[in-house]
């Protein structure tokens, strides 16, 4: 029957209290990317509402493979969490299926859209954020050669790519952007090799949207910087403020020019609060852009980016917010 739920094996979870949990993809809550960011949001929410980690409070489950998504989501359902997040587009199918099976539970998915009455979808306007870091790159490149390293060639990543290129072109039409995909989000060696070939061919700024593969980009930039400290090369971080990742050992410098931050934490926090207060946006697709502060450039940017550049970035930001500029989300739109 539809009402398949059973009592959780321990009833410590008090029904009165609001409990929320999330399932990560293979990244885990420390992937220096959206999983981690999401967990930070959830923790913030938990602490502010005096919840404790675990059943009946706030919690997470990490997946070790595609096969685990459904199982993990179900686990949380069976533990009676009131709101359950699936983090990452990989979770789409699992959420869709389980949402159907458990119409009385509330779900949310990040980075993808699921049209079910009991699912709230959270997506981001990565292209907008990418546009801004594109502006930074366009203004700061010395060689007029800029690089973009993507993880897997997906519509999602294409948003980063197109937004970024648009940003560059907007401020520096005769700069060229070399685009290359590593084919994976967890192949640091490929990231490093790609970066090495890009820098060697004169590129001086690389924007990566490649998760763990990006680590390779950083390590290459750092090694080059160590070899020749006055070499002008930069990396633009993604998802979170990656200033730390760019730190050059033995110095206080970082090769991280700026980062396109994607405030999954904010979004998760918002949605959890909304739901707690009884207005769960079921069936809706909430999109977080510059306007909602869902995306933007990292505050640490000022360390390496001069004032005037940041000023221009702000101007573009306004233009986008008030609709003067429409940022492309696909290569097609870019043309």
């Amino acid at each position, binding site marked *: 029957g539809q009402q398949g739920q059973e009592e959780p094996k321990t009833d410590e979870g008090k029904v009165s209290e609001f409990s929320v949990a999330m399932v990560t993809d293979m990244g885990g809550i420390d992937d220096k990317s959206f999983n981690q960011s999401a967990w930070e949001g959830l923790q913030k929410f938990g602490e502010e509402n005096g919840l404790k980690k675990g059943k009946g409070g706030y919690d997470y489950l990490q997946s070790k493979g595609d096969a685990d998504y459904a199982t993990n989501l179900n686990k949380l359902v069976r533990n009676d969490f009131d709101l359950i997040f699936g983090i990452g587009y990989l979770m789409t199918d699992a959420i869709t299926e389980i949402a159907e099976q458990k119409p009385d539970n509330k779900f949310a998915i990040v980075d993808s859209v699921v049209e079910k009455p009991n699912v709230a979808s959270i997506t981001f306007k990565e292209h907008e954020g990418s546009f801004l870091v594109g502006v930074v790159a366009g203004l700061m490149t010395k060689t007029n050669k800029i690089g973009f390293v993507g993880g897997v060639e997906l519509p999602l990543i294409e948003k980063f790519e197109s937004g970024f290129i648009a940003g560059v072109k907007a401020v520096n039409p005769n700069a060229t952007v070399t685009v290359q995909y590593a*084919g994976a989000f967890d192949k*640091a*060696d490929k990231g*490093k090799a*790609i970066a090495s*070939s890009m820098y060697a061919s004169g590129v001086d700024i690389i924007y990566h949207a490649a998760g763990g593969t990006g680590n390779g980009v950083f390590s290459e930039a750092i*090694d080059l910087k160590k070899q020749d400290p006055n070499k002008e090369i930069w990396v633009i971080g993604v998802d979170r403020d990656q200033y*730390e990742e760019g730190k050059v050992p033995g110095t206080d410098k970082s090769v991280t020019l700026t980062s396109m931050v994607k405030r999954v934490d904010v979004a998760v926090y918002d949605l959890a609060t909304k739901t707690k207060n009884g207005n769960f946006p079921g069936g809706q697709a909430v999109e977080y852009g510059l306007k909602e502060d869902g995306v933007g450039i990292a505050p640490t940017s000022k360390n390496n980016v001069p004032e005037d550049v940041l000023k221009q970035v702000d101007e573009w930001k306004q233009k986008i917010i008030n609709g003067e500029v429409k940022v492309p989300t696909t290569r097609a739109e870019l043309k």
Partner: protein
Amino acid sequence: MLNILEIIIPSAIFFAAPLIFTALGGVFSERSGVVNIGLEGLMVIGAFTGVVFNLTFADQFGELTPWLAIVVAMVVASIFSLMHAVASISLRADQVVSGVAINFLALGLSLFLVKMWYGKGQTDQVQVGFDKIDIPILSKIPVLGPILFSNGYLPSYLAIVLAFVVWYVIYKTPFGLRLRAVGEHPMAADTMGINVTKMRYIAVMLSGALAGIGGSIYAIIISRDFSHATISGQGFMALAAMIFGKWHPLGAMGAALFFGFAQSLSIVGQAIPFLKNVPTVYLLILPYALTILALTGFIGRADAPKALGTPYVKGKR
């Protein structure tokens, strides 16, 4: 074109180095007659130890840290390889099986410890790595200098040097002669008063040590942290390189360099004009397809050491 080579060759060498170390380890083990599918796992242990040591002691040892990290990784991995030795030599285990066990155990254990010590799925980024260097004189050679001896990492070059050292040890020294004898015809070696068990233990531990180095330099130079994805298949590629190289140190090195070249070609290729509009998938499968072709075509069959995979039991024919 030259410029392209300057990009491809260094990254080829840099891809190859960890494979070379590990494959050389494999040569020792299998030359003594012990199959070592466990290279992958031993690399994992090496990577794990290298990174953890580096993170923990960076402040004490400063620039020395990565080198010490390699040494420690080497030691720990060779101790770990003892399990394989005990199982497959003393307990007459099926060597493939115990190798598989090593692989599972290495990954499970190291991730378990990472979760325990760092409370998360991967370690932090190591701060002190190896520096890119231009080899003093050599890098000044016209043409070749920039292609072969610039923008490299010292460990990469050491790997190549080591291959020749191993070749010398295996083919020129009494130890090498005995090692090969033990792998070809242990009973003959035994009747000549060679301690088969001891030789095989040494060989397996050497393979552990070298795989440990391979894993640690991979982690420290490339991924800079340790996670489930750090070592994913490199051990098997090293195994392939060893067989591809016909259980010969220089052959193994050649094969590893070949893999490295194909790898970097598949990546850098996308930047090369005439390869630009080739679909990426072809470049991605290039290394593996090439290897198969090479083996089928000009390399032909390789002859494994005769006693490979068979535990030695006194007085049994």
